[in-house]
């Protein structure tokens, strides 16, 4: 019975050799079984993630269409689709709108609001903190189809709550200011992530450093710049890269404005959908997707290098 209560001892006696070969293979899995454990996951990833990414590059080089002759026998057209994109004003308009969307709602909106909230709630406990955090997180976790409709209702021209509050009935936010609407919507929607990340980051700033800065008479802004900022620089960069990547790929503007009116809020995610699946030009849509993929790749590689250098 004594053996049962002290199992590690016999373990050392029995398995020194395999323990040395597979430094941590405690269950005696071996490479073959380990491969079998990994295989199903890798197979699904290969078919439904990696293959589509490679296939999109190929499709972008063809004139493949949803219907018609080019659907049955797509032709290889080389870089024609990319040349078409680069000379198409609609593509550049959409790229410019996407830039505004990412800069306005992620880089400025979510970062500033998220940091402000984290900074204000840093030393607080109790109801106020949990209510504010709870509401910000609620905006983040609710399904996008629901929150999009909530904003359609809020911004409605005739009966919307916002116009009632501001006393300007008949002001058509979604028609006259579609970009501003989706930028503010996405700021509201995504601030929670930045708030939580900065909340965690501010917890790592040693209170004694802040205390001595305060004793030395540093103002709030000076404390931020000289004590807080150097500690959380890495977090800011991580935060910026992640939320830019997510916002760049966000499809929810479609739920709010569907790219309209007249393509005035047609960010690239919506543009691809319209070109490829509404107009049926799969080849050209795939070429734009390839551009999106490349931009994602650049941002992600940058982010991963940052993570590695931290470790």
């Amino acid at each position, binding site marked *: 019975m004594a053996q049962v209560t002290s199992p590690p001892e016999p*373990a050392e006696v029995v398995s020194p050799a395999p323990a040395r070969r*597979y430094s941590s293979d*405690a269950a005696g899995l071996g490479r073959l079984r380990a491969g079998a454990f*990994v295989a199903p996951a890798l197979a699904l990833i290969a078919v439904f993630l990696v293959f589509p*990414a490679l296939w999109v590059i190929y499709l972008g080089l063809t004139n493949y269409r949803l219907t018609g002759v080019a659907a049955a026998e797509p032709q290889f057209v080389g870089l024609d689709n990319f040349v078409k994109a680069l000379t198409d004003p609609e593509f550049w308009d959409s790229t410019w709108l996407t830039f505004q969307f990412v800069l306005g709602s992620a880089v400025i909106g979510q970062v500033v609001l998220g940091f402000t909230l984290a900074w204000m709630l840093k030393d607080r406990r109790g109801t106020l903190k949990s209510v504010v955090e709870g509401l910000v997180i609620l905006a983040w976790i*609710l399904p996008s189809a629901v929150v999009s409709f*909530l904003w359609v209702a809020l911004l409605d021209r005739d009966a919307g709550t916002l116009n009632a509050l501001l006393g300007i009935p008949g002001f058509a936010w979604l028609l006259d200011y579609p970009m501003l609407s989706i930028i503010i919507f996405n700021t509201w929607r995504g601030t929670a992530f930045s708030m939580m990340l900065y909340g965690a980051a501010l917890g790592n700033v040693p209170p004694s450093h802040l205390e001595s800065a305060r004793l030395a008479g540093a103002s709030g802004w000076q404390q931020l710049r000289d004590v807080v900022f150097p500690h959380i620089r890495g977090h800011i960069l991580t935060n910026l890269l992640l939320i830019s990547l997510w916002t760049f790929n966000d499809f929810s503007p479609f*739920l709010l404005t569907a790219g309209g009116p007249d393509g005035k809020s047609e960010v690239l995610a919506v543009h691809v959908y319209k070109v490829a699946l509404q107009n049926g030009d799969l080849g050209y849509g795939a070429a734009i997707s390839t551009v999106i993929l490349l931009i*994602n790749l650049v941002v992600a590689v940058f982010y991963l290098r940052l993570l590695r250098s931290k470790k």
Partner: protein
Amino acid sequence: MTRTWAGRIGFYTLIAVLLAFFTIPLLWLAAAPFTSDPSYEVRMPDFTFENFQTIIEHPYALWSLVNSLILAIGTALLVVVLSALAAYALSRVRIPGRDALLYALLLLSSIITGTAAMVPLFQLAIELNLIDSHTGLILIMTGGLLPAAIFMIKDFMDATPKSYEESARVFGASPLQIVRHVVTPVVRPGLATIAVWTIANVWGNFLMPFLLLSDVEKQPAAVIMYTLYTEGGQANLKVLSTFGLLYSVPVVLMYLFVSKKYGFRFHGGIKR
């Protein structure tokens, strides 16, 4: 003294403004379902429950919630089982090229988004006859979520002491038995995290079911919600408000459950 007073007033003003900004859009969802004749404007509800009657009578509303549930549970089961097996093997056995593989997985999952892959996925679904198929959608969403899931669960596996497995082995347990009876109970919080994360992702996903399911009887709540407010003349706000609420409540409950039980822990890629 005046400075601290000014500071306090400034603090509470700013908090009040931010609180209003985050609360006002949500008010409609709390009030309209319980108002007899809801409009776009937020009004004090008269606490009626008759709007929920319209949901029961609606031909697709309740079924779409069932469809969401099927998709969420199906994907979660696949993701949890496959990511746990893969992460366990990757955590315990030094497969050649393991680090490169993990690095590539992380990279892939962050760049191949629904937006970038919608064209090939749509075509792939047509070629494989997976349009209008829940199974097809579950497989596609599983493929997209697996890399991040493997990454998260591997952290839990790495942190698990190996002495349990070693002693189980001494008593003659096979590797599969060890995984099932020794490892699984120990990493259960990790598995729960992955399950909740997957369910939340699938439950809210709009783009993939919108692309791949055209049969209205198979569409999940996200797509039905969108159809309700974009198609056909005047939107029925009774249906929309109650349906929106019913569709949202599970997410909120799940969040409360997770934050109470495990604390809302911070995983870099929890949202896609």
